[in-house]
């Protein structure tokens, strides 16, 4: 019997296949389709091959946005992962204090993203914002709408405030899962607090930290709503990250072809970066060479 054709299992697979097709594959293929044509209107399009890809890859504004994006994601990981672990370590392990601190820490995660942008606009305003006017009050001129550095500081602060809690929650869950006997054994062995962290807590958190790093990298690499609301990509182009640039191109200028080509490249970059991270993190601390 031909297993390929006469197989009732197809009927079981088809629904999932259709859902994935409609939700992911067809939209993606539409983008691929756009990316190789120049579109003037619904019935007016020209096949251009890989021209948009060549254009996107040689676009120096895109290069700048890409470098900005790498710097941003790098800083996010460098700040949020250690800070998240540090906060998780200091949180109470049980009792009402544990519940209270979990709720407090999780609060920023519950706020809609565009609202976060709005909160920080007000918070950082040099005239009436709590932090903005406080900094100015100290004699340091600070205005995130005027100075690039100030805009960066504001976006980073917002990002760290918004997303470190996710790292905290994951690290905390990882810490809670360590059996008490490990800490007891470490006390008997005379281990210092640093040794306990280095040889018990950190290795045991490897799994959750892998996920946390991947999530924070992907999310920060795709960040859009908060900086769009806060700075709109400015001043100048100083906080124009990849997705803000992409939306400017696709929606602002309606250049669907170049924007599509750019989207495909963007998607491939994220995919590649995640794969590299994942492979690297799988190997860390397991003793496998390579």
């Amino acid at each position: 019997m031909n297993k390929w054709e006469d197989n009732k299992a197809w009927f079981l697979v088809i629904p999932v296949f259709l859902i994935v097709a409609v939700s992911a594959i067809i939209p993606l293929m539409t983008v691929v389709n756009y990316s190789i044509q120049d579109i003037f209107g619904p019935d007016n399009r020209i096949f251009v091959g890989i021209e948009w890809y060549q254009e996107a890859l040689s676009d120096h504004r895109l290069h700048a946005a890409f470098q900005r994006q790498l710097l941003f994601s790098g800083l996010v990981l460098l700040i949020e992962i250690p800070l998240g672990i540090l906060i998780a370590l200091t949180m109470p392990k049980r009792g009402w204090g544990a519940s209270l601190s979990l709720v407090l820490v999780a609060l920023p995660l519950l706020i809609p993203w565009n609202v976060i942008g709005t909160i920080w606009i007000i918070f950082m305003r040099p005239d009436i914002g709590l932090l903005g006017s406080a900094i100015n009050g100290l004699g340091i001129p600070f205005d995130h709408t005027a100075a690039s550095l100030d805009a960066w500081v504001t976006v980073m602060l917002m990002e760290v405030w918004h997303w470190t809690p996710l790292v905290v929650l994951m690290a905390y869950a990882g810490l809670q899962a360590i059996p008490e006997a490990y800490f007891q054994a470490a006390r008997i062995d005379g281990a210092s607090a640093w040794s306990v962290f280095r040889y018990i807590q950190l290795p045991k958190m490897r799994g959750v930290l892998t996920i946390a790093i991947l999530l924070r990298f992907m999310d920060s690499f795709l960040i859009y709503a908060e900086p769009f609301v806060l700075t709109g990509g400015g001043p100048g182009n100083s906080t124009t990250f990849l997705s803000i640039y992409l939306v400017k191109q696709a929606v602002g200028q309606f250049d669907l072809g170049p924007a599509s080509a750019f989207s495909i490249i963007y998607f491939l970059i994220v995919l590649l970066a995640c794969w590299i991270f994942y492979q690297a993190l799988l190997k860390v601390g397991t003793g496998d060479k390579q």
Partner: protein
Amino acid sequence: MAQIDLNKLAHSYLSKPTSESDFALQEMNLSWKDGHAYALLGPSGCGKTTLLNIISGLVTPSHGKVLFDGNDVTKQLPQERNIAQVFQFPVIYDTMTVYNNLAFPLRNRKHPEAEIRERVHEIAEMLELEDVLNRRAANLSADAKQKISLGRGLVRSDVAAVLFDEPLTVIDPHLKVMLRRKLKQIHARFKLTMIYVTHDQLEALTFADQVVVMDQGQILQIGSPQDLFENPQHTFVGHFIGSPGMNFTPCEIQNGTVHIDDRHIQIGPGYENLSGHFELGIRPEFLTLHNENIQGSHQVTIQGTEDLGNCTIVTVLLGKHSLKVKMPEDQEVPADIGFLEFPPQWIRIYADGKLINAISTENRNRELAQ
């Protein structure tokens, strides 16, 4: 190495204990002598792990004192006391090699590297870990991991005592026997004070030269395995040690004459002044079951037999009391009716669960006479 004394020690996990049941450990005075191998035996939840954690300092007792060689260490942290402890489940430092795992307790105490190397190799050789010394500990089997945990407990030569908290629970049965023998060898070689917590009587009896039996936070008896078997001080010890446990049957005593219902049971001397309701205890191993009615035996109904291969456990009914008899494999079990003999030298008499010694009765007489 040191002698460990527990002085009026009691522990409650509640902040304000009011009744006796609030205590995980009832008040006890106990000495663990230098260089002995002890087993702490009792059912789950009887407080043996609590007692062990108090000795190691992981738990601070609510009442009483812990003394190492006469020095009060009650308030000292585990790292300040000179003590090693091995836990039920293997605790290893995943990212370290086996060698570094074993060296860890020594390095934390700043021993010179040369001494560490010598000591680690010595322990690794004894536990047969030499082949894997340079491997990462994380990728080894559960057995090997627990051997590393044992090794970390044994690697320090200067400890007051090595405490084991059911360390062989996760080990395969055939390896269990091997490791237990290793521990005995290590004990013989280094003369370490060892306290071994277990709920497995076989493990306790084969490991230790002194067994401490606990139940419900109390120490019921301390003795050699033979002592626990022949003279259980408490009915619980009789039940708990031995397989099957000791038989206990209610009996009437009138000036030293024992009756179970209306049957007269002959017992040894020393109980002459005893009268009232008691319990008669006898090991299944010491009861004899005959085919015919011989002098001093009692007719019983055979209820069931279990053939264990090297012996047969027979359940018999004496009147309405059920007793177990352990018979050698080569002896034939009577069909329905048998005749049970109680050897007087193995009969023990208990009141309120506690053993009444024949000699102590004499002492009591002397006291009464005075």
